[in-house]
């Protein structure tokens, strides 16, 4: 990472003495100024509720923490995910804007004019974290359609499920639009792989207990960073402060390095088949992983259509960005998610299914 030039530091100090330490994680003066403004607003708010005597001393504490790399979202306690403000706490992955773009695009595809949706749409989100994906799905979907929803979020982490429940309580809407909405603690990977948290029940056990073995849509943002990439590519604030559990999947040492980020996807596809899921949306790290996951899905043979979505799937795609990938690729930016649908979901997706 290049060193911040002394002139930039001088410039920052001239604006505010707190700014140089924010420059370290932000790298740019403009975004450092934005962060300082948000931190100041937060400090004033906290001080006004008497949780801290003086707002500027609190601001200094916040800036020092931020300078060491603590994610801004943990300091402020929330992050915006689409239109929603989601509570964030250390130990649970912070929602990313790219995920929000994919989820919104999925809802747009489902609710386009003339699409026939079933009377009730059942949506399962695995590795839900803060619960942001089902919450945003409900928010966007209920604005566009009157179809009823059954939503469930699953995570292996106790802290994540608690936070998701807290977020659900904060963003509660009248229950008109969904019949059920719950979060459960369950292990998605077992029984295939051994994992340290044996205290957590396997996914199918939980689903069986709940009596819901049939689902329509499976969404997942699983850990997908390989150990090598974790040390090489991740930002310092991610590596040092976000949960390793949510970022790097457990992998056996025999697979090649670049495929060490993949172990969740075969399992997710297997779950999708068992639960009779019609549409899946998996977030991935980049175009190469998207390609690998899409090939896995193709080998499964039950998927009628397989697409790769980029960071901004709704944007018109550039010609030069398509090419070496053999699957239809939508949007602009990095490869972000893999989207597959079965023949039964053809009428839900309308025009999209015709195009494929």
């Amino acid at each position, binding site marked *: 990472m290049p060193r911040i030039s002394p002139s930039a530091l001088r410039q920052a100090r001239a604006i505010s003495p707190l700014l140089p330490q924010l420059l370290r994680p932000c790298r740019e003066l403009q975004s450092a100024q934005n962060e300082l403004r948000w931190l100041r607003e937060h400090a004033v708010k906290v001080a006004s509720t008497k949780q801290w005597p003086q707002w500027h001393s609190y601001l200094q504490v916040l800036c020092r923490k931020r300078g060491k790399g603590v994610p801004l979202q943990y300091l402020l306690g929330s992050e*915006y995910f689409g239109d929603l403000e989601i509570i964030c706490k250390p130990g649970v992955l912070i929602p990313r*804007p790219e995920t929000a773009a994919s989820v919104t695009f999925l809802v747009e595809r489902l609710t386009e004019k003339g699409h026939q949706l079933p009377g009730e749409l059942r949506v399962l989100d695995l590795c839900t974290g803060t619960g942001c994906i089902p919450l945003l799905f409900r928010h966007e979907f209920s604005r566009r359609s009157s179809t009823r929803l059954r939503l469930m979020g699953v995570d292996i982490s106790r802290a994540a499920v608690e936070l998701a429940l807290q977020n659900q309580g904060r963003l509660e809407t009248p229950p008109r639009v969904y019949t059920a909405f719950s979060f459960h603690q369950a292990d998605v990977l077992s029984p295939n792989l051994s994992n340290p948290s044996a205290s957590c029940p396997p996914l199918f056990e939980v689903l069986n207990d709940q009596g819901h073995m049939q689902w329509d849509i499976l969404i997942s943002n699983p850990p*997908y960073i390989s150990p090598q990439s974790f040390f090489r590519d*991740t930002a310092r604030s991610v590596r040092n402060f976000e949960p390793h559990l949510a970022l790097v999947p457990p992998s056996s040492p025999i697979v090649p390095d670049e495929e060490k980020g993949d172990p969740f996807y075969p399992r997710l596809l297997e779950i999708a088949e068992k639960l009779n899921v019609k549409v899946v949306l998996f977030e991935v790290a980049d175009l190469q992983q998207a390609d690998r996951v899409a090939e896995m899905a193709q080998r499964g043979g039950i998927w009628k259509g397989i697409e790769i979505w980029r960071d901004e799937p709704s944007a018109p795609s550039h010609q030069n960005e398509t090419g070496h990938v053999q699957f239809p690729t939508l949007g602009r930016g990095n490869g*972000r998610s893999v989207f597959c649908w079965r023949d039964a979901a053809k009428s839900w997706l309308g025009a999209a299914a015709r195009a494929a």
Partner: protein
Amino acid sequence: MFRTSWACRTCLYRLPRQVVWRQLRFQSTTSAGNISPALIARARSMTSEHSQLSKQLADAFESKTAKKIGELTPVVSALKDWDKANESLRELKTLIDDPSTDKELRDLATEDIEQSKGQLSRASQILASSLIPKHPFADLPCFLEVRPGIGGGEAAIFAGDLVKMFQAYCSKNGLNVAILKLETADGTSNLSLSGAGLTEAILEIDSPGAYGIFSCEAGVHRVQRVPATETKGRTHTSAASVIVLPSFPANGSEELDFNDPNSDFFVDPKDVRVDVMRASGAGGQHVNKTESAVRLTHIPTNTVAASQEQRSQARNKEQAWTMLRARIAQARREAREEEMVRLRRSVVGVAKTGRQDKIRTYNWNQQRVTDHRSGLSVHDLDDVIEGGDTLEKVMASVRAWMVDQEILGLVAEVESQK
């Protein structure tokens, strides 16, 4: 004469100028018997476009296409008439030129040829005027501003006469007229009670199409009479200026309707590029950028609006849209106001309120009204001043003259494009 020891050279030079065309009055009306080939070519291309669009419309109805066809139809029918007139004239000519034609038939043809020529010139005129695009403001209501020019108190009185004339014209033609502002020299605001004349009057003619009717009145009106203020019986020449401006519909609540394409605030989302500042490199779980800035670029006008105030990207986008809409609306309004200023300047230039820049003369001694653009003189001054049919006649002649001018401009434009 040559015995004169000297003659002033300046006087010698001036000698011929005394006979200069003082008594001659030029008419600027053109008799458009012949139409420029450039215009014909233009009409032909419009006709082919018309038939193409008609075919399109037969396949699928689209209101835009239908509107365009409606605009082109007068040109098409005018061109058809012109072709027909041309054809019959040519036939007659061949008949006359043909030596085998017997004498009786030839006489008949010679008689007919005059009639056909008349038909052709009429068809040409209709064709030319149908080619002129309609003035964009012609359908709008208008403001009429009257101010006295050179001539002191007499000019003020004449300006008052003009206001009364326009009011009478409007009431006779069923146009709604309201006085927005009326100031007289002695401070009263009632024209008929004030003997001192007018300093400024603004009338609003609140009927659609008023701008098209009154745009020919803009300019300096000259009066020649023995004023009421004159004690020695001399004839004075004074002037009053008239400004005509289109009145745009008030933009009240309707401005806020973003989806109405006629609103200033309407921005087609297709014309806008959305730039979201995203993490470069891997993205996703690898990084945790807090940047939420959104930049919108309106491509046709290159207007940019950006927002980074909020932590929520969705809210930043909303803010940026609001800003972009306001900016584009502002630019549109400015363009419209600039057009108004241009109109105002072209009507009455800064130094163009003198007697010599008149568009029309009202001569009381001769009971005559002459319009200097169309060259029409009428001798029923009282009827004109009372806003009667004679005024309508004068105004109609000016409108015809303006059409002719437009045709000349159009020909020049089409020919310069070649």
